[in-house]
């Protein structure tokens, strides 16, 4: 009798073992698939005729995705392409071939191509392993500035880059000593203007940053967002570049600002007031600084609140360099939910997407 009961116990334990093995295998497969972003659904294929896109053809998630630029990590290319995001940002690599390979890989099969973005400023140079460019602090003539823009523009165009997050037009670089043009606000403006003309002559969108200024002087070793007073001098380069209708994109910083522009205690790129005031004068692309920065995340009680505040403020493009594609997808779903509940006007999304698609060379209906 004892032997029979013992035998039955062993059999049950064996069945449980087989069940748990299968369960672990299934769960393990799901965890691996999730970590690679493979559980993210694919957005529908678009039909584009005569280079014209009908906005009504895009799902809400597709439209919001167009407003997002992420890190171009090749390991996650599949989910990033499935989401049909607006762009990828590239960091430093060993050689030119690597850049071309990764750009080609991401762009393959995309009906709406990604924006490909980099930070090429001079002393900030992701290509420095194989090509050198001068720092803007070394440029003090208009001809030099124009040639620098043109040379860098040609190089970037050859790689498949579409937007350069440069030039910095903030004044007086007291931190890095190389990221700002020399001189007063007038000289910085003229040099930046010449640089932008050279770069955009080669088909690359240049980006004046970081609106509304003062990002090169705040020396704060702490891990929260800094605040700064903005003067007329700080705003002068941006106002002039906008008036000359030179620059096609402006990046807004996380700095909390007061003085001539007031972000009302919020990061500037999450301030409706700052973005609206800029929008009244400027019809190009308004881009946030990278929202995955810790100071930005620490400012808000949670990520969901941060995402909604940034999108509600009204920028066209949001940079989110969180490497996890699941988190990017979650951000898109949160914003889509807010639109569906009426918290964010869908027409505001449409306006930005129209601007983005036109910048990518499409006609938009």
């Amino acid at each position, binding site marked *: 009798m004892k032997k029979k009961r*013992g035998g039955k*116990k*062993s059999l049950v*334990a*064996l069945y*449980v*073992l087989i069940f*748990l*093995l299968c*369960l*672990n295998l299934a*769960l*393990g497969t*799901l*965890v691996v698939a*999730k970590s690679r972003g493979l559980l993210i659904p694919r957005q529908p294929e678009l039909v584009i005729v005569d280079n014209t896109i009908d906005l009504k053809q895009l799902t809400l998630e597709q439209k919001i995705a167009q407003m997002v630029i992420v890190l171009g990590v090749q390991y996650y290319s599949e989910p990033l392409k499935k989401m049909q995001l607006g762009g990828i940002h590239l*960091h*430093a*690599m*060993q050689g030119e071939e690597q850049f071309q390979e990764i750009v080609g890989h991401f762009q393959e099969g995309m009906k709406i191509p990604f924006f490909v973005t980099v*930070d090429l400023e001079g*002393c*900030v*140079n*992701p290509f*420095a*392993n194989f090509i*050198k460019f001068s*720092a803007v602090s070394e440029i003090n003539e208009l001809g030099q500035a124009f040639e620098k823009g043109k040379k860098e523009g040609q190089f970037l165009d050859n790689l498949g880059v579409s937007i350069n997050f440069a030039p910095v037009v903030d004044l007086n670089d*007291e*931190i*890095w*000593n*190389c990221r700002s043009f020399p001189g007063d606000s007038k000289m910085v403006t003229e040099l930046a203007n010449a640089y932008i003309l050279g770069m955009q002559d080669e088909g690359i969108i240049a980006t004046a940053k970081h609106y509304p200024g003062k990002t090169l002087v705040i*020396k*704060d*070793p*702490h*891990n*929260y967002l*800094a605040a700064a007073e903005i003067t007329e001098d700080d705003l002068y380069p941006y106002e002039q570049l906008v008036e000359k209708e030179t620059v096609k994109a402006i990046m807004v910083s996380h700095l909390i600002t007061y003085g001539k522009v007031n972000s009302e205690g919020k990061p500037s790129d999450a301030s409706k007031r700052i973005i609206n005031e800029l929008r009244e004068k400027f019809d190009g692309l308004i881009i946030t600084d*990278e929202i*995955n*920065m*810790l*100071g930005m995340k*620490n400012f808000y009680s949670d990520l969901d609140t941060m995402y909604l505040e940034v999108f509600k403020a009204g920028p066209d493009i949001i940079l989110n*360099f*969180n*490497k*996890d594609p699941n988190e990017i997808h979650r951000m898109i779903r949160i914003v889509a939910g807010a639109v569906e509940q009426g918290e964010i006007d869908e027409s505001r999304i449409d306006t930005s997407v129209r601007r983005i698609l036109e910048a990518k060379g499409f006609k938009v209906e």
Partner: protein
Amino acid sequence: MVSSKTIITINIALGITAFILVLSLLGVTIPSVGNALYVLDPNEAVCITNYKDNYNLISTDLCCTELQQQLVKGEESNQVINMNNQKISVNKHYYTSTNTINYFINNKAYHYCKNNGFLV
């Protein structure tokens, strides 16, 4: 033939593994050794930018974002940097080339960036 006691032990282990995998699917994270290393390090996180002869401190927050953009990440560099009459110890060096901006950080800053998901 494996004893039933052994099978039961294996089942308990598999059960715990399944539980951890479910937590992982739900996005629940477990504190890591790296986190413990950060908490136990008594120093303040330090990040120094360097371009030519110029050195300056920047916030670790901004630093983490810049570090992950560099080509060479986390090269061992245990040295003391003299800066504005201060001697600051650093442990790691980040750069793309010697003629672009270089970054020097200490282990505290390294663990801070790593624990917050940056590719350092």
